């Protein structure tokens, strides 16, 4: 059960490692649980919200994806460091205590896991690996840079809409301007927990929203391209949809007629 490197991920990471045996074979032959790390690596797995905080604080960001992919789209300030072309000379001059944030494509991609291990082996002491990769970042509606850019993402096309609080009543709904669209019912931090249609304005004013709302209105993620959104809406026979970040917070309302595709 001892791994070749003698090092295991700390329990705060995933607690699992895949062990492969035999060079030509690539299938997984055993899954080994490593709940108690004796010698933890210095790799910290962080979610996209924490990654954003780190980037805002000026962390050095490394993109493990191929250079062409980086050119299309990458996290703000990210430098391209494709694992395929990794050369230790590129990081030779970097102070080993420099905090690094590494990412790749999504939760199925292992490029950043392997790049962060490589950096760890080279002695870097503060390596951070973004859980869920670039996909987790864009699913929160966070900005990216690159040739593709953000300008065709649905997050750039949504309209702002009024919301009502989960603990509110129909009286609060009536206080909003009339609209033909459903109104999201949200928590204090804008997580969409339900929706009510305009017909609900006719209910007695003291009716509690939480008792009558539709519990799970359909939503899409902010990084979707407007062409994809338009195609999906047309396929579903809809003319609008709520846009929420992957943590459920409201970004806005996408209206088919306003997607100039």
């Amino acid at each position, binding site marked *: 059960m001892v791994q070749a490197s003698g090092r295991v991920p700390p329990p705060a990471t995933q607690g699992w490692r895949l062990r492969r045996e035999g060079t030509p074979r690539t299938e997984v032959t055993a899954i080994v649980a490593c709940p108690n790390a004796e010698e933890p690596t210095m790799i910290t797995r962080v979610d996209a919200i924490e990654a954003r905080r780190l980037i805002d604080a000026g962390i050095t960001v490394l993109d493990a994806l191929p250079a062409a992919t980086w050119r299309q789209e990458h996290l703000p300030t990210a430098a391209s460091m494709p694992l395929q072309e990794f050369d230790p000379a590129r990081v030779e001059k970097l102070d080993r205590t420099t905090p690094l944030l590494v990412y790749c494509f999504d939760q199925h991609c292992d490029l950043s896991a392997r790049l962060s291990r490589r950096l760890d082996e080279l002695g870097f002491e503060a390596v951070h690996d973004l859980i869920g990769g670039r996909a987790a970042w864009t699913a929160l509606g966070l900005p990216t840079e690159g040739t593709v850019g953000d300008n065709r993402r649905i997050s750039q096309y949504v309209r702002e809409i009024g919301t009502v609080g989960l603990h509110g009543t129909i009286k609060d709904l*009536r206080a909003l301007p*009339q609209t*033909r669209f*459903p109104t999201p019912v949200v928590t204090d931090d804008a997580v969409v927990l339900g*929706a*009510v*249609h*305009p*017909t*609900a*304005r*006719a*209910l*007695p*004013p003291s*009716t509690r*929203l939480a*008792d*009558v*709302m*539709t519990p799970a*209105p*359909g939503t899409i993620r902010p990084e979707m391209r407007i062409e994809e959104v338009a195609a999906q809406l047309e396929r*579903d*026979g*809809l*003319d*609008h949809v709520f846009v929420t970040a992957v943590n459920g917070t409201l970004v806005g309302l996408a209206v*088919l007629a306003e997607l100039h595709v």
Partner: protein
Amino acid sequence: MSEAAIRLGWWLSSEEHGPRDLVAHAMLAEGAGFGTAMISDHLQPWATAQGHAGHAWTTIGAIAVVTDRLEVGTGVTAMVHRAHPITVAHAAATAAILLEDRFFLGVGTGERLNEQPYGARWPRPGERRRRLADAIDVVRRIWSGGTVNVDRGSWKVERYRLYERPATPPPIHVAASGRRTAQLAGTAGDGMIAVAPDPTLVDVFHAAGGRGPTIGQLHICLADTSDRAEEVAWHHWPNGAVAPALLSELAEPTEFEAATQHLAREAITSTVVCATGPAPVIRAIDRFVAAGYDTVYLHQIGPDQQRLADVAASELLPHYRS
């Protein structure tokens, strides 16, 4: 800004009540303050325990004579094999005249239960939707006057002219069970009828250009105790526990009984509000309204129709008049 009022309707279940009782129930509904009623259009009951299936159109004629203000519509009339659009256009036009514009035509893609006795093949949902879309078109052309010839699509009409024609053609409300029928309601209907508080159907209906009433049907059973309510609902409405996918596919009442024989009685509470008072009914109506429905028909299951009239007059109707 004043809000559009919520309308409550009375459901006349022609599977559960004889035609003379249905006429009396329509009077009861009007007396209680309901503005609208919908009558089911069945050839046979879902379950033998229901025991009735009078001819809806004939019953509507009688209701027209004994009511003054109550709107009455079919819920719903299918045009698959049993009813040709000429027959429906003809009957609906006469109903609209008798009711002096208090009539609406509810239409749907049908159930095998009401079509199989004609001995023809039971078409799949897509074909039934096309037949319905074509039928709505034919009905509207007949209502618009003049001699109608149709020789394409699902139906044939050979030089027919409707002589008994209301000044204003009645609205057509289309029953929607999924996206495609909701789209049809939006493109071809003057309103939509649904059996669950599904907000997506409303959104699809509107996105397809639909305007007009968004109608929900709510099954309830009010009784002295909730145990009694469940018992009545289970006995008189076992089809309420049959999976929706099967409802349109079974051919005989005995098949509905077979589909429910291994279910526990509680299964009925998934589609029927079994209650002793108005509060759970109000909550269920509210959910329809919050999901985008402006009209909700109440179907009180079982013989005790007076109870709905009483609860509606004293509690339900005043609650939504606020």
